[in-house]
């Protein structure tokens, strides 16, 4: 058990380190001189040289990476030159929108998908199964940003129940904030829920064909109890895998959905930074998102061990 946990943790950390090298070197090969970019075309050679020295651009690549990575560990993501403030402050401010959005969407999608999958699997081949899986088939095909547009049109433009976009800030009160995130979360969650429901159903059906299900039935347990007590936990293993992958998609989705709803989250931040070529911000946000995907996957790996005793003894 401890060996398994340590192995997954060290893999997570190693992945994180390699990912940081990738992010760092990708942005390192960006054409153009960052000092030039910051000071504009009219800067004097002396000023440029001074800035390069100050930014450590004259140091060897490895040293610069170590500096940068060390900074990340201390929470120092560098200084944005367009906002003239530390990147970490920008990220913290924007994450206050993106993080709740992703979490609400994840909870929503799981809360919808697993019951629907269970329902469909327990009524396999019947009308309920056909309707649920038909809807899921359709849901998988809908792009979340188009779904978002439809939601805006129906609930904001037509029914005027919620704002069409924007974010009042958490200072405006919890409900106002949640209300602004409601449509974006639904837009993110439903297509993901469709995928997850399909996976849940097929994982359950696969498990229901196993020998130990027959053993349980031979004990006299009715079909429904067997589904709950024996099938569900075994079916959680593939569902967890997909859940881990979905977190990455949800984060990516958040970036797009924020643009649909004009939410001041990390997604908006990163796009503005790209247009303004504020690469240090791009670097910071990408690194943060990649890190959170890796962390979530380590957590998923640890959940495997909770579900499956075979991993614990390995």
């Amino acid at each position, binding site marked *: 058990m401890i060996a398994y946990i340590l192995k997954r943790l060290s893999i997570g950390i190693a992945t994180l380190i390699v990912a940081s090298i990738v992010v760092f070197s990708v942005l390192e090969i960006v054409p153009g001189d960052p000092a030039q970019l910051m000071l504009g075309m009219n800067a004097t050679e002396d000023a440029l040289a001074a800035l390069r020295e100050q930014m450590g651009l004259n140091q060897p690549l490895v040293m610069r990476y170590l500096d940068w990575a060390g900074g990340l560990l201390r929470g120092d993501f560098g200084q944005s030159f367009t906002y003239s403030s530390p990147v970490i402050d920008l990220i913290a401010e924007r994450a206050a929108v993106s993080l709740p959005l992703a979490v609400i969407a994840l909870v929503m999608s799981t809360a919808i998908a697993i019951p629907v999958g269970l329902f469909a699997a327990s009524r396999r081949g019947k009308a309920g199964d056909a309707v649920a899986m038909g809807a899921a088939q359709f849901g998988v095909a809908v792009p979340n940003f188009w779904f978002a547009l439809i939601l805006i049109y129906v609930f904001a433009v037509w029914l005027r129940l919620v704002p069409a976009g924007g974010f009042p800030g958490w200072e405006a009160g919890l409900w106002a904030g949640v209300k602004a995130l409601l449509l974006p979360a639904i837009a993110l969650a439903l297509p993901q829920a469709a995928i997850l429901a399909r996976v849940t159903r097929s994982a359950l059906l696969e498990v229901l064909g196993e020998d130990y299900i*027959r*053993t349980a039935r031979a004990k006299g*347990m009715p079909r429904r109890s067997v589904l709950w007590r024996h099938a569900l*936990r075994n079916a959680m293993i593939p569902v967890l895998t997909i859940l881990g992958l979905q977190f990455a998609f949800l984060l990516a989705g958040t970036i797009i959905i924020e643009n649909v709803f004009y939410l001041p989250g990390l997604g908006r931040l990163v796009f503005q930074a790209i247009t303004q070529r504020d690469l240090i911000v791009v670097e910071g946000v990408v690194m943060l998102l990649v890190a959170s995907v890796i962390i979530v996957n380590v957590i998923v790996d640890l959940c495997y061990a909770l579900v499956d005793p075979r991993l614990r003894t390995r």
Partner: protein
Amino acid sequence: MTLVEIEKLSLSIGATPILKDVDLSIGAGETMGLVGESGSGKSMTALTLMQLLPQAARAAGRVTFDGIDILSASEEAMCRLRGDDIGMVFQEPMTALNPVKTIGEQVAEGIRWHTGANRANAEASARRMLERVGLPEAQFPLSRFPHELSGGQRQRVVIAIACALKPKLLIADEPTTALDVVLQAQILDLLRDLVAEDRMGLLLISHDLAVVTDMADRVTIMRHGEVMEEGETAKTLSAQVHPYTRQLAQSSMHAPERPNRHAASSTTGDLLQVDTVVRDYPGRRRSLWKKTEPFRAVDGVSFSMKPGQSVALVGRSGCGKSTLARMILALDNPTGGEIRFMGESLASRKEAALRPARRNMQVVFQDPYGSFDPRHRVERLVAEPLHLLEKKPSRAERREMVANALHEVGMRPADMDKYPHEFSGGQRQRISIARAIITRPKLVVADEPVSALDVSIRAQILDLFADLNQRLGVAYLFITHDLTVARAITDEVMVMHDGRIVEEGRTGAVLDNPQSDAAKALIAAAPDLRRAIRRKLQEQG
């Protein structure tokens, strides 16, 4: 008093008829043996009793259990019967238990479900039951998970689940087929004792006539979904009135004719020499700080084989015999020692350098279904070893060689244009042998080549092996846990135990008069139809 009464049971799945007018009755406390080859419908008969049939199945006729009409019983009524009055044990212990639940939970679950006992009481009963089936608390606490147990131990857990509430009827569907003979004998003893103790009726389903003869009071013999014969065990099997019963019994005891045994003279050189071969596997890490202990699968094995000789390598499952076979076939490398084939060492040679050896050494596997790439035609499958020839044969030559090989094993040359799934298990095993002999090898290693086959097919395949040995002079290394096979077809036998060869000698001599404990255990446990009938005749008069 009859416990189970099946009258004119017919069953079909979709449009396929499975059972036709099956009659069967089991008295209280009686053991009924249900025998038949694969596809005879014996398992479906059992599943009908449990009402655990596939959804598309339709049954007609009358099935009563303890006065209850099973076919018209509601699902709730069946749930009350299952696990309480009828328990069932299945064939495959490795998959029969839920991997994420402890054995305690799984045994206690049925007890709680039927008796409404609280957790503590149910666990106490579960503990007693596990103790009874030979899994004492001290070594096997309730908190063990199935993957921590061996196959035989898992089957004991399944039996504990089935017998926890002392059912009136226990159904055991091939309960020992997946286990080796020693475990089989232990599990059968356990079943016998449990049934006697609690006066349970037992429906024992098996393809093995010897096992059933040993265990059952009465037998029912089925074929193609119909009952062929039914009666008291001793009488039925000693008289063998029904032609199918006779055929089954004779196939089970079949030994091929081999007039010039041990054709090879002892003056010729050795074909194969195995010299203190060792194979270690990296052990599983028990904890982060302890060093891993390697697991020694093969431990200093030495022996040699003459050309044309037929040798059996017998042993319990996990004794290392298949690992040894793989090293001889150069599919795996020994950790230590040396294997010399036709005078040349095989150890860690490059694939190209192994070609001459491979040409003279082919293999037949156990599973006639897994032995062929389902996407290739028989021609391509049988011709695969021709890859080893120095000169690539032309297409016409290749077809000629395949046709010859198929002819040797009793198949038609036209069969080469078909796909493997178009053949039965026995035919596939013939094709598998055709592939093994197409390069005219000096040695064929056969890993349990008949243990997946029905007895009548098994007899035919054994005849084929014997015939090829006589005609082509090919030497065999037969890896088997089945002593009947060893006796039928080999000159010499080696008994392997825990990675070592503990006894070797002339087959007849070793099997009739074993010296080592391992060989004695193996031979005592092996089912033997003649012996079983004799014993039954004494019991039943």
